[in-house]
């Protein structure tokens, strides 16, 4: 691994994002750290190895777009955007404070780099499809990436958009599913059967890749692969709360917040 290998930067950024976002949640005593941590490696890979973007030109027409459909994992998004240069790091200390630009759910009018407002589940996919259609109409080369939760795919609007993307062969659209198998109240499969998620997406006209959502090299390869003739789904198998022993695979850490001892332990483990 050479010094300018993107995997070195991605690994470092992911570690920083976990530590920083958990501090945000600790200080705000609010947030969704479990989902932040399952998505952190995906966002770090996107922002520091995949996306063609320029924080100095957030409206650059040819930029790649990333839509954070699981908007509740705003801690992961805000740390990624800050590390990428969209806002000063000290903004992160205002997370969910009165008057902050960093709402619990992202608002594109508050923070550049946020492509659309999300929060209610099932909104990112149709918007991402619309962005991809705009590119298809104009012949633009930009790529559109959208990250959803797995429980989120219980919202029907996702499947309206999945059908549209398959029908229109939106080859520059990539869906990434944060497949941590836990939703707010229980396991996804105990709530509504999601599997076989890969076959369901293939039936809608998508190419499907399954991988370890914490493996930066695998993520980088899948997300940088050239477009085919179909939209692409990357089912990223992840661990909710990844990186902190007492949080991993625990549904209660969906929106759990740490006390002082838990925060200290997490900082010891996240190294």
């Amino acid at each position, binding site marked *: 691994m050479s010094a300018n290998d993107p995997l070195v930067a991605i690994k470092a950024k992911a570690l920083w994002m976990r530590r920083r976002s958990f501090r945000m949640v600790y200080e705000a005593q609010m947030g969704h750290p479990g989902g932040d941590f399952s998505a952190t490696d995906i966002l770090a890979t996107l922002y520091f190895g995949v996306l063609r973007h320029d924080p100095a030109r957030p409206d650059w027409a040819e930029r790649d777009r990333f839509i954070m459909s699981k908007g509740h994992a705003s801690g992961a998004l805000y740390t990624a955007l800050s590390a990428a240069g969209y806002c000063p790091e000290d903004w992160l200390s205002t997370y969910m404070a009165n008057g902050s630009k960093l709402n619990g759910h992202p*608002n594109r009018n508050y923070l550049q780099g946020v492509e*659309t407002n999300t929060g209610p589940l099932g*909104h990112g996919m*149709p918007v991402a499809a619309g962005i991809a259609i705009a590119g298809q109409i*104009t012949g633009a080369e930009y790529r559109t990436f959208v990250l959803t939760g797995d429980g989120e795919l219980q919202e029907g609007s996702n499947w*309206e*958009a999945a059908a549209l993307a398959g*029908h229109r062969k939106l080859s520059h659209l990539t869906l990434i599913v944060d497949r941590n198998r836990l939703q707010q109240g229980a396991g996804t499969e105990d709530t509504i059967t999601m599997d076989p998620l890969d076959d369901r997406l293939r039936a809608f006209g998508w190419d499907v890749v399954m991988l370890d959502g914490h493996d930066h090299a695998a993520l980088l390869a899948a997300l940088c692969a050239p477009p085919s003739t179909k939209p692409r789904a990357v089912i990223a198998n992840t661990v909710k709360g990844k990186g902190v022993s007492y949080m991993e695979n625990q549904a209660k850490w969906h929106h759990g917040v740490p006390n002082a001892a838990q925060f200290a332990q997490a900082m010891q483990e996240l190294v």
Partner: protein
Amino acid sequence: MAHTVETAGLYDCRDAWSNTLIDLAVADDRIVAVVNDSVGSSKLGGFQTRFADRLINVGIAEQCMVGVGAGLANGGRIPFVSAASCFLTGRALEQVKADVAYANFNVKLVGQSSGIAYAELGPTHHSIEDFAWLRPLTNLTVLIPSDPWETAAAVTWAASHEGPVYIRLSRMPVPMLDIPNRVFRVGRAELVRQGGDVAILACGTTVHLAAGAADLLQSQGIGARVLNISTLNPLDEEAVAQAAATGAIVTVEEASIRGGLGGAVAEFTAAHRPVPVERVGFAGFQPTGSLAYLFEQSGLTAQGIADAAHRALQRAVK
């Protein structure tokens, strides 16, 4: 005017909408149309023929349709999302709220066959709640053209305006309003009839009925000012204040009397200039019936509006 099709002095405003959109699309290749299998009901067949690749049919999927509109705006297009307003505003309300209004994307929502245009098809297909649903949405301009001229003007303005807009259209045949030297001004009420005894504030398909009511009242010695409130959001509060100064107000809309134009006027007058307000519109879900029958039943006629003016004037005296 160009782009209209007249039948016995009446016009279907969808002709003005669709022909204006074609003109705009010729001049600006960013303009696209998004539909939910609603090409025919939106009269977009001509647009589809001219600009096949700029007509995006998402199928029968309204939530997706509105989200796609937001995405097209993100991608630099100017989308006109056109569908029956009952489905556009009801089925996709959260997308209208979050993806269009709150996100403040440059999306034009075009509600077709609004009000009770689908009369006999019943309340599932009526759109009398849209004003109440959309009026609180910050950033969203709500336009209600009253005739073909105003429809063309509203569509043209929407294309040039950077921001979310809802245009409420109907397939109900309406006459061209006889107003000299018209200028379309968003956010400003349009004077249709002069008068100082009572003010009738109407919108959309009911403006010509309000003008008819003013004529009836005139013959009774009552001077009724008629205002065309073609922008519901933002409300022309100055015009409403001046209307309140007459001492009595009637509001008229092809919509629920709760939360729409009547609601907006009542909110403003209660806070700033208390005055009797009689609201003419629909009290709730409508029974089976023709458009004419349902209008008659709810007093949406020249006579019914004149009667409401008398009620308002009586309350003002007390």
